[in-house]
């Protein structure tokens, strides 16, 4: 992708907007057609793109919490795990329940949303770094719990033989079905969250992220909106978890280690916090690329670190930063005129007193 293409996401130029729309449309058609056109290594590509899509869903979920709500949650894996284990417990041979995927999908997501609220209540008063530390612990507690609650999760042996979803008599017995399932849900969560951001709720999140105290002074119930961000993010994470469990067919505690949270966080940061197109680019860079470059596996972490460092220097707001962040960067880096920067800075200085 060239830089003009990158930049046009943030501009109001109508022609560029249409170019982007057409390109996005072509991409969607290509992605939809890909599993139908046979080519070498097709199964691999279906898997890689499906997996990337799963991380896009996860990224969109965390983006609600971090990008919209401004809450640095480092235990996002909790929601993913709850979704996955809900389905694995209710639709495998382990307990012998074989509930329908379509029933458990909303159930697992709701349970994850509920967990988001439950874990959100004690951290309502913590901010920034402290919130990060506490939620990091939640993520680890989740992994330890599922390792040790053997009667429910079968411990480190994991749950195997998880049912494939059945849709109008058609069993999801190949990767293609999951590919389309993930594709639809990714579009769905992208659509819903982008609507949400423009709504009254989105504006409240915006204000809360900018300045929590002032948000309260303007009449925003910040506790409610924080919990709502955790719930919505948790719901989306739970959805991804259910789909993941069904697709993989077997899940183990190790699928839910801290690196899931870290990966999701990194893909958001690389793409641009708060930006939905950014999540997609981040997932491509972080999930698809390493999978495609599997033969260079030994250098993956090295390249990864290098990428992060280069990002910090060249595009600190991410590849496709959200408009809001671009406005801010416009002020602090390539601002319109230096005179105009002055008052903005003096006001932030004033905040500290």
């Amino acid at each position, binding site marked *: 992708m060239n830089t003009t293409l990158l930049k046009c996401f943030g501009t109001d130029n109508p022609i560029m907007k249409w170019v982007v729309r057409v390109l996005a449309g072509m991409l969607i058609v290509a992605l939809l057609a890909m599993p139908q056109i046979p080519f070498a290594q097709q199964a691999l590509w279906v898997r890689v793109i499906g997996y990337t899509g799963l991380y896009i869903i996860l990224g969109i979920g965390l983006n609600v919490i971090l990008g919209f709500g401004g809450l640095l949650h480092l235990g996002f894996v909790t929601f993913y795990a709850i979704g996955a284990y809900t389905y694995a417990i209710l639709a495998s041979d382990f307990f012998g329940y074989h509930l329908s995927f379509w029933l458990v999908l909303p159930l697992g997501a709701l349970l994850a949303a509920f967990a988001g609220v439950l874990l959100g209540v004690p951290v309502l008063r913590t901010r920034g770094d402290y919130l990060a530390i506490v939620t990091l612990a939640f993520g680890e507690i989740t992994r330890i719990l599922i390792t040790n609650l053997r009667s429910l999760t079968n411990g480190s042996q994991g749950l195997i033989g998880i049912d494939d979803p059945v849709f109008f008599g058609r069993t999801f017995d190949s990767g293609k079905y999951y590919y389309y399932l993930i594709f639809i849900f990714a579009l769905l969560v992208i659509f819903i969250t982008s609507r949400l951001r423009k709504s009254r709720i989105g504006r409240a999140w915006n204000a809360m992220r900018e300045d929590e105290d002032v948000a309260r002074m303007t009449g925003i119930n910040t506790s409610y909106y924080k919990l709502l961000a955790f719930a919505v993010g948790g719901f989306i994470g739970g959805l991804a978890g259910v789909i993941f469990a069904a697709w993989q067919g077997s899940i183990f505690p190790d699928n839910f280690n801290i690196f899931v949270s870290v990966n999701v966080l990194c893909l958001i940061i690389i793409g641009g916090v708060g930006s939905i197109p950014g999540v997609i680019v981040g997932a491509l860079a972080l999930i698809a690329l390493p999978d495609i470059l599997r033969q260079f596996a030994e250098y993956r972490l090295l390249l990864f670190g290098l990428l992060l460092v280069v990002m910090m220097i060249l595009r600190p707001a991410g590849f496709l930063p959200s408009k809001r*962040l671009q406005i801010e960067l416009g002020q602090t880096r390539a601002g319109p005129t230096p005179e105009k920067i002055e*008052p903005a800075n003096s006001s932030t200085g004033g905040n500290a007193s």
Partner: protein
Amino acid sequence: MALLEVRDIHTYYGNIHALNGISLSVEKGEIVTLIGGNGAGKSTALNTICGITPARSGSVLLSGKEITKMPPHKIVEQGITQAPEGRRIFSRLTVRENLEMGAYTQKDKDKIRQSLEQVFEIFPRLKERERQPGGTLSGGEQQMLAIGRAMMANPRILLLDEPSMGLAPILVQEIYAIIERLHGQGTTILLVEQNAQMALSICSRGYVLQTGEIVLSGSGEELLANEMVRKAYLGEN
């Protein structure tokens, strides 16, 4: 009955006793000012009224209704809004979005449009910069925006925390002219200031706050003439 009545409030930050039993009242249509030095507890008093730093004991009454234990967003609904110290506008939101946030508790769209027109009428400068991010405004404009944002909820009482802070003298004059204009239109104002001269010259009544206690009160002229006030706050020997 006073519009706002504060009775013997004690507020703490952890173990620090920031407000040591202060009482004050504001009648409808008044400008009442609260002056005092750094750390006297002026901002804390406003934040306690707003519910941001709730009082541990004592009570805050709005038209006789107890609001002491209400969360801040409920207090805004009751009709108290604040233009906080240091302005604290949403720097990434545009001027218009900032103002719209101020009307967050208002449900009636026509009323919001009306308030917006009123604010733009009082602050034509904000109208000019409607689409500009708040952070790109000058200090004086940001203060106007902060006051405008607080006005958007049609408050019964407006709390202003050091509107003159960090502004050039000419801008202080301008802001104070606007405060008097708002007062002239019937807005009830509780004004906190370090700039005692300015505040006392426009207020109906004033209170002097020192280390969390009210040590003096009276009309603006009385306080301006008071020797202790002259020495401590107006820089006279």
